[in-house]
């Protein structure tokens, strides 16, 4: 095929617009057994925190109609081991790397940004602000324009001028556009939409919540209409800000839907659990659709569903 299938996010170039979603591909080692990581636009690593983290007790997941709940609780090795083991390995693979970070306080985000600012081989930082803020009664950063922008400002001040910042937003808010605006004002170069929706499953045998933590994050095709709506609204309000779209994409058609809504790149999460090769088949299918619809540049399709408003 002959179309230009590359995309760019805040000045960074990616040869294809299909990324992995944070937390759904680990740090790439396992998937590399199924395909070379270089065939991804980028690998977005599992959100890393300052310290090692056990995550939540099991059960951590429940399948739901066309989706799943998870409450992994950000299990991970902490930034030191991550920088020691995962980043060099990914660099050796030649993968394009987007590092996702998560914190429990504004200071955590600042510390993580400082640790990452001079690490070579990273394309961008994705800032997961769908985390409880321990300094504010556990309220999730992404659920309030002020705390959301505090976290992003902390990263902005500490990251230096080089690395683009992508703020990842939660759909569990009354007005996602106002949150998007506040984090862009605070220095985010791009937005990732959407994180999971808060949900719960009750086991009707034990008659107790299925997850040990009671609530969990809903992902998968079930949430795709919410993702498309969020991306469309934010693209309409902030036409110049690049968006990494995600939420229930499991085919090239689905990815194209997010692109038409306004996504400059599309991350694949839950679909990888059903099919380790999902990102590859979606890449192939999306390229076919974009070409079949008559686009010679992928970027011309981004936000194309808005065209009536613009006319």
């Amino acid at each position, binding site marked *: 095929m002959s179309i230009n299938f590359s995309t760019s996010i805040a000045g960074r170039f990616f040869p294809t617009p299909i990324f992995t979603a944070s937390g759904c591909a680990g740090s790439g080692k*396992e998937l590399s057994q199924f395909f070379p990581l270089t065939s991804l636009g980028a690998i977005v690593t599992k959100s890393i925190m300052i310290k090692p983290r*056990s995550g939540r*007790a099991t059960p951590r*997941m429940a399948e739901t109609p066309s989706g799943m709940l998870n409450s992994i609780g950000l*299990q991970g090795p902490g930034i030191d081991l991550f920088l020691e083991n995962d980043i060099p390995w990914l660099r050796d693979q030649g993968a394009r790397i987007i590092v996702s970070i998560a914190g429990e306080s504004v200071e955590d985000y600042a510390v993580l940004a400082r640790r990452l600012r001079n690490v070579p081989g990273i394309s961008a930082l994705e800032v997961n602000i769908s985390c409880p803020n321990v300094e504010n009664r556990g309220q999730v950063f992404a659920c309030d324009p002020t705390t959301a922008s505090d976290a992003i400002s902390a990263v902005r001040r500490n990251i230096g001028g080089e690395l683009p910042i992508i703020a990842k937003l939660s759909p569990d808010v009354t007005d996602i556009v106002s949150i998007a605006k506040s984090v862009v004002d605070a220095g985010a170069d791009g937005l990732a939409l959407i994180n999971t929706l808060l949900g719960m499953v009750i086991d009707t045998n034990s008659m107790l919540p299925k997850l*040990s933590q009671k609530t969990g994050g809903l992902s998968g095709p079930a949430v795709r209409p919410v993702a498309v709506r969020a991306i469309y609204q934010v693209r309409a309000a902030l036409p110049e800000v690049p968006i990494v779209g995600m939420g229930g994409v499991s085919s090239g058609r689905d990815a194209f839907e997010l692109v038409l809504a306004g996504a400059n790149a599309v991350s694949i999460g*839950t679909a990888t*659990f059903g099919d380790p090769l999902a990102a590859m088949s979606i890449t192939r299918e999306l390229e076919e659709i974009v070409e079949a619809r008559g686009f010679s540049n992928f970027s011309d399709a981004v936000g194309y569903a808005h065209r009536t408003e613009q006319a």
Partner: protein
Amino acid sequence: MINSKAASIKAELISNKKAGSYNHMVFSVGELAAHCKPGNFVAIKVGGPTSAMVLRRAFAIYRASMRSDGMGLLELVVAPYGNGSKWLASQEAGSVIDVIAPLGTSFGIPVEPVNALLVGGGYGSAPLFALAETLKQRGCRVDMVLGASTAAKIYAPLEGKRSVNSLTITTDDGSAGTMGRVSDVLSQLIQENEVDVIYSCGPMAMLQAITEISTAHDVVHQCSVEESMACGIGVCMTCVLPVQGDDGVVRMTRTCVEGPVMDGNKVLWSTSREIPDGVWGK
């Protein structure tokens, strides 16, 4: 790292027969069969193309073999329980099924002949028969205990029984063998048969009970655990258990890549739905 032989294939279902409460299902998987070891599992896509089920289901490999005509066979024992397993059990010979295999760790096979005790609960007996054959070939003594709630849930095919020195059966309702649980008969069998190693597969509560007994008798315990798995390939972190590493540190450990076969004595069994104290990163 994940099982280095793991691959995603379309496998034809060759046969599907009722066996007590279970379905014995045979798939044609070609070369892959040669790489499957006792204890490995497979991950199967369920529900067809427009299914509302987005996750694969894991099944222990009952048997894998290369036939003389070059056909590679993979056999499973499936309990039709919820939507996924019922769908699988309802498929007819000729259907093409999406399978990732082999996955996970396998049972460690001793280099010297030892006395082995194999303990299975419900469909947990499935992977033990292939293991029994391998152990017999290595000159081991192999005793087996199978338990279930009721007789129909004991999976013990004739040809499988042949490869063990003794078979003890327990059922909760007494409909077959001794009334009671597998753990009730273990201590005696360990002593009588001078057991060196226990291999087990079944519900987590059973594995925990066996671990207590194996620790008391200072016997090695390799168990195949069953935590619910979303991906089966190590990328989602849903399938973890607190397991002590070689460095003494207890980590939340993925049972799909560092299991399902694990050293039972290193697992911190717990039913509390809380991360035990002392786990790395708590």
